């Protein structure tokens, strides 16, 4: 079931949360809506779910080619999972999951036996067998979120919408659960959109990442595309560390700079730390001279801070521990920096 949103605008008083946003989610994909807080991603998700109305006359929402803009949330066939779970506190896990089936009109309601079967099946699917009699308060955050997921799936939704599903969990659980979600998605193949402000999360599990900023979509692409070939300075800075270099002339003397003209508009150069090569300072050698100021050595890679000699800008470079050992430099030593060829955009790489 594909989801297409066209020209969605939403204003809250004077604040524009969404400005003529378009979004296409192909059937069966896991898509991340990624952006800083206030970028409009949650609002877009809620409009897709029908929990919020887009401004009158602004665009439409289609599920599988069918216009659902004026369909109520309950009739759209969406499964919605909230950041803070929104489980019904006074009901057991089993009753929570069965809720969507029990509120159906009598004619469509399955028998209690069928409901019990379905609940057991879903509990198994989210790996919570045997917890059916517990109350939400007796579960951990990760378990609660899986109950919320099972509850949303009970009504056999056509699309699954997750609002910051791991936002309230601690780092370790968060990582486990997002990998689990990826596997889970591969099993059930349900068109899924999830909202997150965590770029690592989006890049790790999504088929496609939609990056939003200030009520607009900045870029859409696979995780590798958006990471390697950001189309705007915002995306460059939002996804991972980036050095913003002003002195393009000095850097272009060290080798060719290719950015497909996309970023040149602001006259700045955006370079990831791992695209900067560090060599010992030798007379006559090519490179931008810099002073070695600090090294963060905890981790598989070493992140070193350098101060450019001419502009006094601070630049970060990421090199392996072996490389750092081979350099044999001490703090405040002079080094030369060059752009690695890999940072360049390939010309035959069409978007």
């Amino acid at each position, binding site marked *: 079931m594909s989801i297409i949103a066209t020209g969605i605008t939403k204003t809250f008083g004077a604040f524009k949360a969404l400005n003529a946003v378009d979004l296409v989610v192909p059937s069966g994909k896991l898509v991340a809506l990624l952006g800083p807080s206030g970028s409009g991603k949650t609002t877009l998700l809620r409009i897709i779910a029908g929990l919020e109305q887009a401004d009158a006359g602004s665009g439409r929402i289609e599920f599988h080619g069918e216009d659902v803009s004026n369909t109520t949330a*309950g009739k759209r066939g969406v499964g919605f999972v909230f950041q803070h779970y929104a489980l019904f506190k006074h009901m057991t896990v089993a009753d929570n999951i069965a809720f969507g089936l029990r509120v159906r009109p009598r004619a469509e309601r399955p028998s209690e036996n069928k409901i019990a079967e379905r609940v057991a099946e879903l509990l198994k699917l989210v790996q919570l067998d045997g917890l059916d009699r517990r109350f939400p308060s007796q579960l951990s955050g990760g378990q609660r979120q899986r109950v919320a997921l099972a509850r949303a799936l009970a009504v056999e939704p056509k699309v699954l919408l997750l609002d910051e599903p791991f936002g309230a969990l601690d780092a370790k659980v968060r990582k486990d659960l997002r990998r689990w979600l990826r596997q889970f998605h591969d099993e059930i193949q349900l068109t899924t959109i999830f909202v997150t402000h965590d770029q690592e999360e989006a890049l790790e599990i999504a088929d496609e990442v939609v990056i939003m900023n200030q009520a607009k979509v900045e870029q859409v692409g696979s995780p590798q595309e958006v990471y390697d070939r950001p189309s705007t300075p915002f995306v460059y800075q939002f996804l991972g560390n980036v050095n913003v270099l002003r002195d393009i002339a000095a850097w272009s003397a060290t080798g060719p700079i290719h950015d497909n003209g996309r970023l040149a508009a602001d006259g700045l150069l955006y370079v990831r730390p791992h695209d900067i090569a560090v060599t010992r300072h030798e007379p006559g050698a090519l490179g931008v001279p810099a002073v070695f100021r600090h090294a963060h050595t905890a981790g598989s890679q070493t992140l070193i801070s350098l101060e450019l000699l001419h502009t006094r800008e601070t630049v970060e470079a990421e090199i392996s521990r072996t490389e750092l050992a081979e350099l044999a430099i001490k703090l405040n030593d002079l080094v030369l920096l060059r752009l690695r060829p890999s940072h360049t955009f390939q010309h035959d790489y069409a978007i």
Partner: protein
Amino acid sequence: MASTISNLQRHRPPATSQPKVTQDPVWVRWLLTTIALLFVAFFLVLPLASVFAEAFRRGINAYFAAFNDPDALSAIRLTLLAAVVSVPANLVFGVAAAWAITKFSFPGKSLLITLIDLPFAVSPVIAGLIYVLVFGLQGWFGSWLSDHDIKIIFATPGIILATTFVTFPFVAREIIPLMQAQGTDEEYAAITLGASGWQTFWRVTLPNIKWGLFYGIILCNARAMGEFGAVSVVSGHIRGETNTIPLHVEILYNEYNFVGAFAMASLLAVLAIITLVLKSFIEWKFQQGRAEA
């Protein structure tokens, strides 16, 4: 106000669990505790005990004889009637208002919140007078009402109106903060799962606010049965017709019928005690619910 204090108590750990350095010296604790207890003894326990002492002064037979009077029975009936009408009316209004205030945004919302508090802010006597001015014989609708032979002031409808007015805020005040704290996510979740608005209310919202709602109802009921000022203005004090228990107590007392007055007063005192017990029970339940959440 009472609920604010108990809210504070709910969240504070008991003093004994505090580390020693953050505790006041022993004499300060003793002094404050003694002052509080003495105050309670003199101003609350002693009067309460004296109500029962006076009521039983001439023995248990005289006590029960006091109720065997048509005027007394009529006062009890009228008080019950006023409560039976005004409490459900305020229950419906309170839930509707709380729902509107916490789940929707609409123009005039803050005005509604302020107006709900009006009966707390205004003297009950004024509240009674308002109804006399509106529905009384010389009032705005007075001639129309008397033309149609409808009696509101100095009759049962006036008493019910005045009682409803003074007990207006109790239910709404109790559940608005509760519903605000709970937010709307659970309701939204129910809606995306296909529940109708009605199903969402009965299956999701109501179970979440039920203890707060009970709390509001018992406070509302206690006030409805005990109200004096507003009811006194609209009642006209017609014996056997428009006297409620509190008004009847006053009449008997003014006639030096102390046993009768205190016997009737003991009914209200028992009501107060039952209310307090229920209130503690509900607070305890509330706390359990919170500990689970």
